[in-house]
């Protein structure tokens, strides 16, 4: 009963928030609704019994990725509304819906073939986090290490790409720099 209520509440809120993310003209609104939608998606994971996945979703998505986005937004002008030239949006909507439908049919077809056996079955006696840990560090050890190397490469790439010429101003108009300089001179 509670599961049903939670499912419908979470799904309605998530769909609404992600619609705001996709449709909004303001970067701040889009980012805030994206963060809220990700929190609600971790709620889905908790309903489904994937406790560890839900916690990772909260820490990595809501914590790390949204913090990274908000840091990056300090470089861009976030208060200004984004002007976009949207040509032929009806065609885009039709194409998006159609290709999503094709994708869903494609991926849903094998599921209903009833031939799926559990490769790494869950154990009810031990918790989800322990279960995940055992499978991750035995069966998925090599992908885990490769993912670690990938994260290291991404970190180095991020530092090198963003770190160049950090002393220069990013904004086009130099009036803000002049203002800072005049206040410095006044002191």
């Amino acid at each position, binding site marked *: 009963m509670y599961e049903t209520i939670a499912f419908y509440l979470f799904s309605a809120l998530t769909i609404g928030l992600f619609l705001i993310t996709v449709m909004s003209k303001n970067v701040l609104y889009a980012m805030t609704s994206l963060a809220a939608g990700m929190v609600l998606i971790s709620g889905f994971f908790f309903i489904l019994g994937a406790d560890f996945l839900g916690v990772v979703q909260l820490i990595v998505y809501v914590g790390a990725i949204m913090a990274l986005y908000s840091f990056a937004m300090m470089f861009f002008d976030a208060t200004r509304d984004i002007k976009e030239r949207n040509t032929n949006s009806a065609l885009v909507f039709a194409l998006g819906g159609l290709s999503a439908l094709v994708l869903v049919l494609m991926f849903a077809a094998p599921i209903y073939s009833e031939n799926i056996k559990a490769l790494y079955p869950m154990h009810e006696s031990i918790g989800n986090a322990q279960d995940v840990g055992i499978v991750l560090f035995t069966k998925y050890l090599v992908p885990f290490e490769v993912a670690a190397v990938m*994260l290291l490469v991404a970190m180095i790439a991020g530092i090198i790409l*963003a770190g160049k010429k950090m002393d220069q101003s990013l904004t086009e108009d130099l009036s803000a720099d002049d203002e800072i300089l005049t206040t410095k001179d006044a002191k």
Partner: protein
Amino acid sequence: MIGLEHYLIVSAILFSIGLVGVLRRRNLLMLFFATEVMLNAVNIAFAAISHYYNDLTGQMFAFFIIAIAASEVAVGLGILIVLYKKYGSLDLDDLASMKG
């Protein structure tokens, strides 16, 4: 009672929202947000299948998707900052320099 189909339908709706966003957005930062929406939709589907088939493989895939999303954001935001320094805008129409 909520079945696997319910979760898959929600996941499909969220995925198509993200796909519409990728297709209609012209700002690169907003394009990144739409990609995050799509990745999250796929994660819901993986977690639901993992629960209803009593199998941990779906959750493992979701973990690796989260790792990939994190590294994608790190590299992508670095590229976005470099582009903004170079062109002063993040609009895809301004950035189209190849005429083909």
